[in-house]
């Protein structure tokens, strides 16, 4: 199974090599949760602010229960304050 991982702003530094335009296709395991992906890519807590799957916001307390499914897009935003 594959999903798309999109990391924005400062978080894009955590994308593995091969990523283009802030995103990369990743293999996911059966029952692998959003929280597990966040851990797998070593995304620091302080930078994981908004998590959306296919455009739907996932609350912090739901990240461990929300499994990623084939073809879904996981988008993660850090806090942004630039002006």
């Amino acid at each position, binding site marked *: 199974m594959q999903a798309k991982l999109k990391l924005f*702003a*400062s978080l894009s530094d955590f994308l593995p090599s091969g990523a283009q335009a802030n995103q990369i296709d990743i293999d996911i395991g059966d029952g692998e949760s959003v929280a597990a992906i966040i851990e797998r890519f070593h995304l620091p807590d302080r930078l994981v*602010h908004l998590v959306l799957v296919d*455009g739907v916001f996932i609350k912090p307390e739901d990240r461990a229960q929300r499994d990623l499914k084939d073809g879904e897009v996981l988008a993660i*935003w850090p806090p942004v*304050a*630039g002006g």
Partner: protein
Amino acid sequence: MDDRQLLRYSRHILLKDIDIEGQERILSGHVLVIGAGGLGSPVATYLAGAGVGQLTICDGDDVDMTNLQRQTLHREARIGMNKAESSRIEVATLNPDCHVNAVPARVGPEELPELVRQADVVVEASDNFSTRHAVNRVCFALGKPLVSGAAIRFAGQISVYDPRQESSPCYACLFPEDSPVYEDRCASLGVFAPLTGTIGSMQAAEVLHLLVRGQSALTGRLLLYDALAAEWQEMDLPRRPDCPVCSERNSGMTGI
């Protein structure tokens, strides 16, 4: 409005959602703009062009060469000049109907209450979280709508926080004040020039809606813009019941 103004604002007056009454509200409006950089530039340009009567523009920084890729209020000839002052000069050439009060300082909890009190709408276009939290606190204490934008690299966000709407969250509902401080400076991360124009122009649009109609459709919603994929996403922003800034506002305002 005199004949010159009827002509100058005719393309707004033609819009039935603005009309003469709406344009008059714009002309008598006072908008506080925090930051005269990448976001503040399109905000001030569109608001001045549209005839907002008074703009108070705050910025403690001076214009430098690296700003000019995106900060369209400033000019090479004004490198070294304070950005609020540079903005005042630029706006004067655009529309004499718009009076600019330039505040050449980084404003904080000391200066903000008086500035916010005089404004009808506040625009957050600064580059740091401490200013953003200070502005949010004062807006919610004084009941003034806040149009907040941010842009870094290829990523932008915009929302409106309106303390007069019971269901509206505040900025601290989305970014709790006690979160670890982390600053994402354009100076180290870079920023795509037209991204600041996209977000800032949308901020100007919501300011005009607030002046004309008294409300913004963006209240309680956060728009997320990916300028690499040309994609927008949006999410609803609920109030945080335990938010220290806004949770008590219906039983008396929180202190500044």
